[in-house]
């Protein structure tokens, strides 16, 4: 099938040797997840030509389950973006309307699934990068609890937020893929021993209490989107769920805390790309190394990546660390506390995944601040570390809308069961 959505950066057909529940199933893998012998670029010129000598843990598990690695998917460069337009290799196109963006940063994975190129894909979610394109392309995407999936082999953008997660056309396939990749890995010191049992998946929402944070229907959220999501929540009530309004007052600090921390971590993570050990852009050996590095990095990184490296470098520098990084750390703790508290009163939280539907190509990237603003409803789950899923729940402005369901730490079980209950009822 031709890749008319520019979903793939490289295509492959590498069949895993295992004989598990994904035997023969083609799975697309986001291009920031290391794949042995398949070029892995993070959609950046600076990694063009880099062929990892090892598989990410999640990829090893896919192969052991018998999956076929179908290729590497397009994304915002290093995961920095919410549209997949910040790819050095051209934007991915939304299969529901090719004049619109897929969302990002896992836009290639979403387009590959939504466009019918593969049934399953791996994405990664740092501040919404799985859920945003899932919502905008009309598929299901799960951001797991922090630590439940090994990050070994995931090329870091913001280590303390991100997780690899499953994307699929439906909740069942999403859960099946999640069951393959979840579990402990000794090579990731932040990983936890919480495997997921696919056999336990069942449509189950009756009797659950769902908190509806009022901040998720506040200013900046499109009314038609709001309406669609409210109808979905009404559906959950019909299925026997109880809803209560909750408040997450510290959410107003979420975006600031997120962007300070992720740019700080990114600035450090991306410093290693100097062209010395890998990639096609090699340093000029006739120059002093410092100048040669500058030349490589100037040529290799796109605008948004450079912007975030500069922001993070500034925020960590002497005299500013306390003003930015330390404050953001406090805000993160406060937000996590607010979510944990809300989730003692209820089993789940629900609201829209994105404040808008997929914008036209070029519309959102014009203004970086406006683009950052689009992450307001997805970022909190990354800060709190909790699981969050986006499930298609109808349309607004003729484009798909995602219902976001968040749960308690390591309680993907309840999240997936609720999402399945909703999906089956539609």
């Amino acid at each position, binding site marked *: 099938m031709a890749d008319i959505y520019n979903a793939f950066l490289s295509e492959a057909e590498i069949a895993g040797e295992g004989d598990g529940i994904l035997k023969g199933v083609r799975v697309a893998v986001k291009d920031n997840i*290391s794949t042995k012998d398949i070029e892995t670029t993070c959609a950046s010129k600076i990694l063009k030509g880099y062929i990892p000598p090892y598989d990410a843990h999640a990829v090893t598990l896919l192969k052991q389950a018998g999956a076929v690695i179908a290729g590497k998917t397009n994304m915002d460069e290093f995961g920095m973006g919410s549209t997949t337009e910040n790819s050095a290799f051209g934007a991915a196109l939304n299969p529901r309307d090719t004049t619109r963006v897929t969302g990002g940063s896992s836009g290639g994975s979403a387009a590959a699934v939504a466009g019918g190129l593969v049934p399953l894909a791996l994405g990664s979610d740092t501040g919404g990068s799985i859920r945003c394109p899932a919502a905008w392309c009309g598929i299901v995407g799960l951001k797991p609890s922090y630590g439940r999936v090994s990050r070994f082999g995931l090329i870091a953008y913001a280590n303390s937020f991100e997780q690899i997660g499953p994307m699929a056309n439906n909740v069942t396939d999403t859960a099946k893929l999640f069951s393959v990749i979840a579990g402990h890995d000794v090579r990731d010191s932040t990983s936890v021993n919480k495997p997921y049992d696919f056999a336990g998946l069942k449509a189950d929402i009756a009797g659950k209490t769902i908190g509806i944070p009022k901040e998720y229907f506040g200013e900046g959220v499109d009314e038609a989107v709001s309406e669609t999501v409210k109808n979905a929540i009404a559906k959950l009530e019909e299925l026997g769920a109880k809803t209560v309004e909750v408040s997450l007052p510290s959410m107003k600090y979420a975006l600031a805390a997120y962007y300070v921390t992720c740019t700080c971590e990114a600035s*450090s993570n991306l*410093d290693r790309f100097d062209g010395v*050990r890998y990639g096609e852009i090699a340093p000029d050996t006739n120059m002093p190394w*410092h100048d040669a*590095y500058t030349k490589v990095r100037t040529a290799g990184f796109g605008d948004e990546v450079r912007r975030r490296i500069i922001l993070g470098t500034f925020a960590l520098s002497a005299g500013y660390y306390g003003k930015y990084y330390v404050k953001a750390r406090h805000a993160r703790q406060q937000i996590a506390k607010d979510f944990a508290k809300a989730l003692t009163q209820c089993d789940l939280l629900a609201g829209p995944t994105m404040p808008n539907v997929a914008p036209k190509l070029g519309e959102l990237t014009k203004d970086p601040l406006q683009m950052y603003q689009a992450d307001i409803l997805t970022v909190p789950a990354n800060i709190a570390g909790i699981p969050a899923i986006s499930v298609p729940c109808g349309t607004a402005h003729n484009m798909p809308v995602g219902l976001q369901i968040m749960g308690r730490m390591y309680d993907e079980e309840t999240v997936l069961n609720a999402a399945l209950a909703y999906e089956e009822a539609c």
Partner: protein
Amino acid sequence: MSEEFQVIIGLEVHCQLNTKSKLFCGCSADFRADAPNTHVCPVCLGLPGALPVLNKKAVEYALKVAKALNCTIPEEGEFCRKNYFYPDLVKAYQITMGDDPLAIGGYIEIEDDAGNPKVVNLTRIHVEEDPGRLVHMGNKERGYYTLVDYNRSGIPLIEMVTEPEMSSPKEARRLLNKLRATLEYLDVFDPEKEGSLRVDANISIKGHERVEIKNITSYKGVEKALTFEITRQKNLIRRGGRIVRETRHFQEGKGTTTSARSKETANDYRYFPEPDLPVIRVADWVKDIELPELPDARRDRFMSQYGIAVNHARTLTGDLKLAEFYEAIAEVGAALAASWTADILMGELNYRDMHVSEVAGHADQFAELITLVRDKKITDKAGVEVLRVWLDALHNEAKSEAPSAIVERLGLARESGESFRGIVEAILEKNPQAIEDHKAGKKGALNFIVGQVMKETKGKSDPREIHAMISEILGE
């Protein structure tokens, strides 16, 4: 003049811990004999996506050191990233520890230049990873280039920072010796591995700016670099110049320091907590750590158990291998063995650039030599001669010849004074002036005669006996 210049020295010491594997991956840390870039993996090469996994052994070793140096060990330690670009640093950051190190405080006891006990306080101890190694190649004609070897990348280091409390280069050297001995006793450090110790020294003249000398790689180098730097700073001050706060590099070959380019020192390391590693709770580990006997305790035991002098005890316990060597031979006579080991053997080893570990396997032969001296089978002088022959054979030919065999082969057995009477008489005859001088009451005049006899008899004669014989001949 000199009393107006009070010298203040602080040290930052990096030692490689002798763990089997690297700090954050399973690569073998025993890389020195192997080809470049053969002890590497995605983690220590900093490949995209690779993550660090802490080698707990390294932390345990560091905790041992902290406990041995009387440090306070907080319940938790946190790794952080020190960000800077350099071609030997694969991730462009070093995983180290910042505000929450493994240990704070602590102290080391040394002797000051007058031989009095002195306590030097420690600021902190932490664990961090070693970067790779740059090898500069090429020449003027064909151009210069640099090779990078990542075998060293990720080797565990312990960094120990002292307060600026030392007041001479010799004190700094003694502190390093004490530290090395302690680490060796703890079995966490192999001082014989090349580059296993690196020192940065802060030095200032009281009332003036501080200068940092980076990356001194030998014990001797520290003393040399500091001595040079003190002279430089004093001269500058005397000429009315001003000391600038700066980093200087030590030129090992020339024994001088040169100013580092400011570009290298203007780093803002942008420290922040390492998100890939959880905070480590060490409180429980510390409880389980048992320390072996340390140098000071062993020194005190040597004095009480063997009844030897403090200077001998200190020298003998200042090196683990030496202490073990002494204990293996002490039974031939503790005091005699102490003096032969600490004074004579050490002198001969240093002269040959040998370490006690090279003779450690032949302690029985050294004991035999001391026994020959003790039982007056050979004179002291012949004993030294035998020792030299024995060491040379070990050093040059890896051959160990029994001292008794050497005595036999070279005919060095002590003979009684009577057999040398003819030689003594002949020498007296040839040196009437010395006898005159002696009779005139000139002290030491006879020593010349005794020396001549010793020379003639190849050390087989006992100088005391010869002395007595001369007196007798001269009718005194």
